Every structure is written in structure tokens, then in C-alpha cells.
């Protein structure tokens, strides 16, 4: 599903040049659950951003579903992103001005799903995430665990092929954290490919494979048994 080869990304300021990705090559197969680990500044988040088509690499190849997307423009990337990729963030990133229902509905609006279908699908996913009773609340009215459940609901409502999770349990206590990890595992078992960046060895154990990074390169790959 994902094949990146010799990917490079350098951040430049006036004085400093930071190499975030250094000729990185990774492959992720459809249906895989991959955890990416490494110390701060090793390039995990940059990798995730490029995989999520939020950022573009300086050089190298990125093949997504058989298509070279490294040189896609903003509009094409947005189009591909909204149909194929769901995001789960550490800080949830729900829109404060929208209710739970409306937050989850948003990706469907952007992909042009009709209002009737939208309602059905949002309710379905809220039900599955067990937050249906909170559908009319605003994010500030929810606990962290509930907010992340909404965020996961939002990530999956469009039935994406790939979910990118950036430290999804970082802001949660252990029981809420386990709940979210279980949700991701369930999604993966239903066929969704997941790439998750994490600092937690505990969370990483939910995955099939751990990619360990340092200074913009892969240093080790552990296959989980």
C-alpha cells in the first residue's frame, strides 16, 4: 500500500539546517499495523505528515496505492487525503465550535456525502464508539478519553484505507489509553491499515511491526509475534 524510497526532507532556517528524513525507505503492506518509534527529533512526525499527504518530501519517491504522489500539488493531495486517510492526533484536534456529531460529520461533508447518508453513517460510528449519548455535546464538555473516541470516530467515518495515529494515547490515562488502542486493533482486524507514531512500548506491542528511527533513518525493525 505504501512504498517510500530514498525519501529526504530537510528543514532550513537562516542558520540551521535540520535533516528530518535522510534517504528513508519503508514499505507498509495493506492490512498492516505498524508502529514507528524513536527519540524526539528522529523524524517520526515528519514521516507521518508526509504519509498523510500534509507535507511533501524534498526528494525520493512515495507510492501510495500504486500511484506516485510525491509531486502531487496541494489540491490533488487534499483530494486523495480526504478519500483514503484518517487521522488521530495526540491532542485530539476537535473543532471547539462544532458538536460531537458535527465534528464526526465533517469528513463526510468534504467528500460530498448526501445529508441523509451522513446522518446514518455518523450515528453508526458514534454508536460503535459508544459515544452516541454525547452526540450534541461540545468537545470541551467531554473527558480526554471521550474526546479521543470522537477523534477516532471522525478518522474512521469515511472508511479510510489508512489511519495515521500520532501518539494517540499521549494525553490519556492508562485505562482510556488501552480502550483507544483496542479500538485501533479492532479497526485493523477489519482491514484498515494503521501507521502509529508512539513513545510507548506498551502501545507499540499492539502492532505487527515496529520501525525504530534515529536521525531520519530506520535503524531497526521488530516483527511482533
Amino acid at each position, binding site marked *: 500500500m505504501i512504498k517510500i524510497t530514498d525519501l529526504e526532507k530537510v528543514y532550513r532556517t537562516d542558520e540551521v539546517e535540520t535533516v528530518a528524513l535522510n534517504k528513508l525507505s519503508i514499505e507498509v503492506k495493506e492490512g498492516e499495523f505498524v508502529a514507528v518509534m524513536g527519540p524526539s527529533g528522529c523524524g517520526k512526525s515528519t514521516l507521518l505528515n508526509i504519509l498523510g499527504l500534509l507535507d511533501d518530501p524534498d526528494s525520493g519517491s512515495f507510492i501510495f496505492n500504486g500511484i506516485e504522489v510525491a509531486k502531487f500539488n496541494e489540491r490533488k493531495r487534499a483530494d486523495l*487525503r480526504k478519500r483514503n486517510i484518517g487521522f488521530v492526533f495526540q491532542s485530539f484536534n476537535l473543532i471547539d*465550535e*462544532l458538536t460531537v456529531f*458535527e465534528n464526526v460529520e*465533517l469528513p463526510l*461533508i*468534504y467528500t460530498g456525502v448526501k445529508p441523509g447518508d451522513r446522518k446514518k453513517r455518523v450515528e453508526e460510528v458514534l454508536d460503535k464508539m459508544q459515544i452516541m449519548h454525547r452526540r450534541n455535546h461540545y468537545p470541551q464538555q467531554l473527558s480526554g478519553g471521550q474526546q479521543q473516541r470522537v477523534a477516532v470516530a471522525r478518522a474512521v467515518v469515511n472508511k479510510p484505507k489508512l489511519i495515521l495515529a500520532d501518539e494517540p494515547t499521549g494525553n490519556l490515562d492508562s485505562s482510556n489509553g488501552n480502550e483507544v488502542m483496542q479500538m485501533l486493533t479492532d479497526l485493523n482486524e477489519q482491514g484498515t491499515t494503521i501507521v502509529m507514531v508512539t513513545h510507548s512500548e506498551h502501545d507499540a506491542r499492539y502492532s505487527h511491526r515496529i520501525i525504530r528511527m534515529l536521525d531520519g533513518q530506520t535503524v531497526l525493525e521488530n516483527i511482533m509475534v
Partner: protein
Amino acid sequence: MLKNYFKIAWRNLWRNKGFSATNLLGLTIGITCTIFIFLWVQDELGYNKFHKQYDHLYKVLATRNFNNQIFTDENMVLPLARSIESNIPQVKRAVVTTSRQPRILSYADSRLKKEGYTVSEHFFDMFSWKFIKGNPWTAITDPSSIVLTQSSAKALFGNTDPLDKVIRINNEYDVKVTAVVADVPGNSTFQFDYIMPFNYSNDYIKRSMNEWTNSSWNVFVQAGPGASMQLIDKSINDIKYQHDPSDKKISTYFTFPMSKWRLYSDFKEGKNTGGMIAYVRLFSIIAVIILLIACINFMNLSTARSEKRAKEVGVRKTLGSGKRQLMFQFFSETIILACIAFVLSVFAVYLLLPSFNTLVDKQLSLDISSPVFWIGALIIILFTGLVAGSYPALYLSSFNPVRVLKGTFASGKRAVLPRHVLVVGQFVISIVLISATIIIYQQIQHIKNRDMGYNPDNLITIPATYDTQNNFAVIKDELIKTGKISAVTRTLSPITDIWWKSPAPDWEGKPANADIIMAGLSTDIDFSKTMGVKILQGKDFSGMPSDSSAMLLNEAAVKAMGLQNPVGMLMRYGNRNYTVIGITGNIVMESPFKPVDPMMVYYQPYNCNSISIRLGQDVSPQKALPLIESVFKKYNPSYPFEYQFVDEEFGKKFLTEDLISKITNVFACLAIFICCIGLAGLASFTIEKRIREIGVRKVLGATVQQLLLLISKEFLKLVLIAFVIALPLAWWFMNDWLQQYAFRIHISIWLFVAVGLLILLLTLIVVSLNTLKAAIANPVKSLRTE
């Protein structure tokens, strides 16, 4: 999708009440101003448009060249209209009218002075008036008929039917009311209380119908469909020259379309120089500028608080929203805001319309049922929404989702610079407007304080009549005997007007090329005493028999004629000789903005139309007027007692300038007010952003003053930059404006210093008020919020 945009827009506005209120206030003021100016402009542009034949109506004017003095004249000979109508096939109708004339209309016990026109037969076919009683076809077929407006009919007859009632005119002859028309709209060039037909059996009119040199009437033509106006103009000239060949080297006749009567009424040396259109343009520009200032507020405040919305933009982009969709969303927010502001503005306009009408002396109304209103509303809302939303939409939608979601996003110089440019722009406009207001005010005061050459205070004029002329000696005697009146005289025209202009008299040594047009005034004894005119050399008329061949000249005449020792010189005017017995100071009778014309004053008590009465020193008009009235009631019984204060009449010469002064004044104040609202908003955001810094500085020992200075410094710098840009702009604009006045002020640098200090002070107050709360708050609180 659209619903989602509006929903989030509405919630955003609702949640950020302070931000929304600040923007709403600014936009509402801006839109209210725009609506008011729009109403005023619409009224000006709509002048005379109610006439059904609007596009086909013309007034005949002449460019006349008397001794190289070129001017444009509307006075035509009486038979011209009839000749045009019968000889030019392309003209459908031609009408001749008098200029507006006051007449006394009497019925039973009521005697009213009303103004109106005497007109030829097709007047009501050509111009469209709303008939309430009677009809346009038979209204003026009988020469002894009269058409009244609704309010003059009501004033004369109360609620009884005015039709067929007989009214006495000027106590001389009777006419019958044949029709009543609705009161003339405010935006009509013709303004009248009555219309009467010419009486062609009257001796004077009969004579005038064969007289091709006496120009005292106004002529209008209605062109036929597809007529060529050049051809009509040429034919009019041909007709006139045919009957009066000597006119060929003096006059060129042309037709002036009704659409230009109001807005392009000024002519200079035979060329059209515009008129009200200049102010229509100026105020339209001001309206757009004020709206722009309000829009800039919105842009600044939106981008200033952009960090708060950055996350939303990031999330939406991550979920697949394109840049265009985001821009659309932000535009929908400003358009909602503009809609709300528009609704509030409409309420404000309804509330303030009476005051605005007083200000501009019009009867404007806001008709929300008219399509024009809705088109205007759409234009204003779209303009406001798109302009105000443009920069924020572009700026916000360009956020990089990776950076904003990571939290590393901070609006750097990229965001601050345009904001600063916009703030400077706002202040430049405000400083220019305020400087303009002060300069206009100074210029008007400068002219009002100009030495008028006479004393307009406590001076009353009363129109002379046949009776007052006959009884003048006894009237004057009785007035003086009251002890409240210090002097009485009479003149050809009131002191605030010139009715007689002619070429200068001849004198010994007059250069052959001396083309001097002089004003003329006939008067009685006590001229200088009553008017307060200075006699610089020689003496005033004293009523001696020799006065009938004496003349006074004013200073301007002595200068124009180049006379060395004018007193005692002989002048020949017409076929008579006059001796110059005195030189008066220059008297400003016509425009106070122009130099005084050379003038000659004759002793001709019989040729006077205006009585001037000087009240005694410290005598209040309230005490004197009843006494004057009783004298006039006694000796002029057939006329109602009417009088004018000369200082008020003089004040009317400033109507346009006063209007401009008032309007710029109001708009300048509003512009600076909107700027201050924006400044307050920006200051509070700056403080919000720097609250931790303020806390830390306080902990480290900063005083409140130091903190105020810290925050104010940023804004004061912007105001200083604005000042440097605005100064030459304001000077250039206003210097240009002043060029139209012969008597003008010099723009002082101190004026700009004062304006600069005023703006600086305002900035300091606005910013300090906002900063103070943060500066005196307990720093522990702000540090804990992090």
C-alpha cells in the same frame, strides 16, 4: 456544506462576542454612513426625474460675450418659445416662463405671499405634475386662472374645495382656481406655490411678444423623438439672429438637457464647470472610504486573532478541506456579519434620518420596498463582506496544517506587516479627513470674518411696494419717531444682492480698450448711515437737487477705472452727466468668496425695491419689530408684513460651504471613531498575546507606566508613520480645494501639529485604557493561566 459554513460562522460570531461586537459596531457605523450618503447622492441624481419627458426636456441658454466678458445667461426674449415651436419641426413643444415671482394671494381675510411662475400654454403638457383636482389640459386655458399646490390651497381655503374660488392677486386683479397639484417634490428644479398662464391681452405682454431684444424669460423645449439637438440649437440661433441681427456677435444659443440642470449648473466664461456633481463624487468617495476603514478593522482583528483559529484550519485541511473551501467559509462569516451590520444600519438610518435631513436640508426617506434599496443592500453587503473577508480568508486559508497542529505555529512578521500597513492606512485617511474638516472650517470663518464693507447686524430689509414708495417719507418719519430705529434708506436691490450690471460710464481719458462691467445701485439719502458703509472720500447723498446728477463709486471701481482724483470727476452714463461726489469702501453684496465688483451708486429714490432699516444700538429686534410692523400695516395695508434680517440673508450665501463643512465634520469624527474601535480591538489582542510577558515584567519590577508605554509604543509608532504620510497628502488636497476661493487662508503647519497631537493623544488613551487592566492585574494570575 453551505449550512455547515453558516452554522460555524454563526457560532464563531456568537462565541467571540467582544470581537463580533467590535466589528459589528465599526461595520454598522460604516454602512450607516454609506446608506446616508447613498440617499443623498440618489436624491441629487434623481433631480427632476419624475418628469415623464425627462430625457427630452431642455432649457435654452445663451453664451453671451459683452466686451469680452463671457457669461452664460438663461434670460430669453418672450416670443422665442412660440417661434421655436412653430418653426423647428424637431421640437415637439416649447414653453416660456417667467422666473420665480412672489405674489400676494388674497381670499377673504387671508393674505399670503406665495412664489410661482407665469407660464405659456404647454407647461403642463411638457412637465409632469400630479393633479389632485382639475386636469392639465384645461388648467391654464383661461388667462385669468391659477393652479395652486395642495399646501397653498389649504393655507388659503382650509378644508373647503378650492376649485372655482376667486383669488385676488397683488390686490390688483382676480383669478379663478382651476386646478390643484400635489406639493412640488424637494428634488425639483421648479419650486412653486402657484402657476398662472400669461395673459396675452395684457399690454406689456402684447408688446413683449413683438420685442426681440428684452431678455427676461426662461425658455424650455421638448425635443421630438430622434431629434438632433445640434440641428435644433442651430435653428434656435437662426431664429434669434433673423429677428435681432445685432445679437449675432454677442450671443450663441444652446439647449441644456434637464439631466444636467441640477448637477452641472455652473458655467464659467461660457464653459460648463460642473457644480453639485463635484460634491456627489466627493461624498461617494468618502462613503467608500469610511466603509473601507470599517472593513480594515475587520481584517486586522480577524488576522490578529488568527492563532485562535489556526487549529480549526489545520483540522479542516487534514480532513480534506481545500483552500478554496476554507476561503468560502471565511467569506460566509464576513457576509453574515455584513448582513447583521446592514440590518442594524437600517435601524440606525431610520432613527437618525430626521437629524440627517436637518443637516443636509432635504426630505430624504428610506424606502425598503423599492428594488433600488435591495440592489443597494446587495452591493453594500457584498462589498463589505468581500473586502473585509478578502485578506483574512487568504491569510487564514494559507496556514500549513502540519505547523498549526504541531503547535509550532506563530504569526510572524508575515502576518504583522500587512496589519501594520492597514492600520497606518486607516490613520492616514483619518488624519487627512480631520485636517480637511479644520481647514474647511477655517476657510469659511475666514470669509465670514472678511470685511463686508457694511454692517449686517441689526439691519432689516423689507420689500418696497407701490404704497411704501408713495408713503416713504412718512413711514421713515414714524419709524425714527419710535426711538428704536436709528436710520432708514431704500435701495434698488437688498444689500445682499446686485440686480443691475452694465458697462462702465465714460470719463475723460477713458482708455479705448476699457471693458469694465459695473454693478449699479440706486438709493436714497442716509445710504451710508443705514448700511454702515464707509465713505472714504467726499460725501454721501444728502437729498439736494444736485444729487440727481451725482454718483458714488466704490474703491474697486476707482481702481478698475484707474482714477487718480475721482471726487469731482465728470462721468457720462446713458445720455446724462454725473459728478462723482464720494468714494465708498468695497461692499460685498454678491458672493463673499469673490472679489467685489466695481460699483456705481446713483441717487434715484424712485427706482428702489428694498427698504433697509437700521435698529438703534442695543435695541432688540423683538422690541423693534412690532413697532415697525404697525407702521407698515398702516401705510402698506394690502401686503402682509414681511422682513428679512440681513445677517441671515448673508448667511445663506454659505449654504453649500456650510453643508460641506458639516458633512465632512460628521464623517471625519466617525472615521476616527471607527479607527479607535479597531485600535482598541488590536490593543486588547496584543495584550492577550503578551499577558505572560506583562506578568513576568511585573514580577521583575516593571511599573504600570512602563507597561503602558511598552504596549503603546508599538501603536504610537504606526500613528507617527501615518502622520508623515498624511501630512503632504492633506496639504496637497486642501491646497487644491482652496484654489477656488479668491480669498483664502494659508494652511499653517501648526494645524497639522495639532491634528498629529490629537491623534497621538487619542491613540494613547485608547491603548492605555485597554492595557491598564492587564497592567494592574496580579501577575500571579496571568502566569498561572499558561
